[in-house]
């Protein structure tokens, strides 16, 4: 298949399951499950994704929960909200984005990524459709803290800062 093939999940759409795609995959609606691709995955600014993602390049501008393997590059835009463990060849998290997770970046991390992707660390939250007529509006059914809340807590100084030296 051509590298220019494009798979688009529209802004009013909800998909649950496993998606395998080549070329570009764009999530404008709500996606739950897993995405495996040989090209690019883009979660758009209003997109909501609860999935494991494995692709060459991953760009997230919306909300994402789940582990990510980006063999070449992971890019989080200034409005991205991401929670999950990441393995990537390179990473860029813009100012304004919120991200929480363990990170392994570099060629070695990517080479060892497969076992990590197979043993995904946490169960993914389930997306619940609030109103079937507007499926773009979804909420998390079993997520204790919806995206955004976990970042609102005040930051605590790490223990190594609390000593008297410096």
């Amino acid at each position: 298949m051509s590298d220019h093939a494009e798979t688009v999940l529209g802004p009013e759409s909800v998909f649950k399951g496993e998606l395998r795609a080549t070329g570009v995959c764009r999530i404008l609606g709500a996606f739950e499950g897993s995405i495996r691709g040989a090209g690019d995955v883009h979660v758009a600014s209003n997109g909501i994704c609860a999935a494991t993602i494995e692709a060459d390049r991953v760009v997230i501008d919306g909300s994402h929960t789940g582990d990510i393997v980006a063999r070449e590059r992971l890019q989080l835009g200034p409005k991205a909200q991401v929670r999950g463990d990441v393995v990537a060849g390179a990473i860029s998290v813009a100012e304004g984005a919120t991200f929480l997770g363990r990170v392994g970046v570099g060629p070695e991390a990517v080479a060892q990524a497969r076992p990590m992707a197979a043993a995904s660390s946490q169960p993914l939250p389930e997306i619940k459709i609030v109103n079937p007529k507007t499926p773009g509006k979804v909420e998390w059914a079993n997520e204790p803290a919806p995206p955004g809340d976990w970042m609102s807590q005040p930051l605590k100084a790490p223990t190594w800062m609390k000593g008297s030296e410096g």
Partner: protein
Amino acid sequence: MLAFAQDYLQADRTADCPHCRKAFRVGTVARSTMCPHCYRGVSFDDVVIKGECSGKVCSGGRVVFRRGSRARTRGITAGEGVEVHGDVEGAVLCRGPVVVSSDGSLRGDVEAASLHVEAGGSLYGAVKIAAMARQ
């Protein structure tokens, strides 16, 4: 003195104490001061590490680990940014961007305003990227 120069010298900005993390006002041209909250010295000069280094690394400005540097730190705190071109170990707390270049390696947890690891560079650790509320 020219009016604009006087304005520049009298202007102030908000800075963050790298020790207690509280914000305070300081003159635009100040290179060092004492934190009014914890009374510890704060330097706004960049810290550049070219060789080997251990212990804590602290600056109200930027911290730069040059290519070939080797640092086994007990923590890195920077007000304006951290650049890693060498081999660095230690937790990073930074109000600005953390950049690991293609020849850099960082092992440690990172809490910063933004993060960039270029292809070829490496980073292992837990990461928290968020706008840090000033205290």
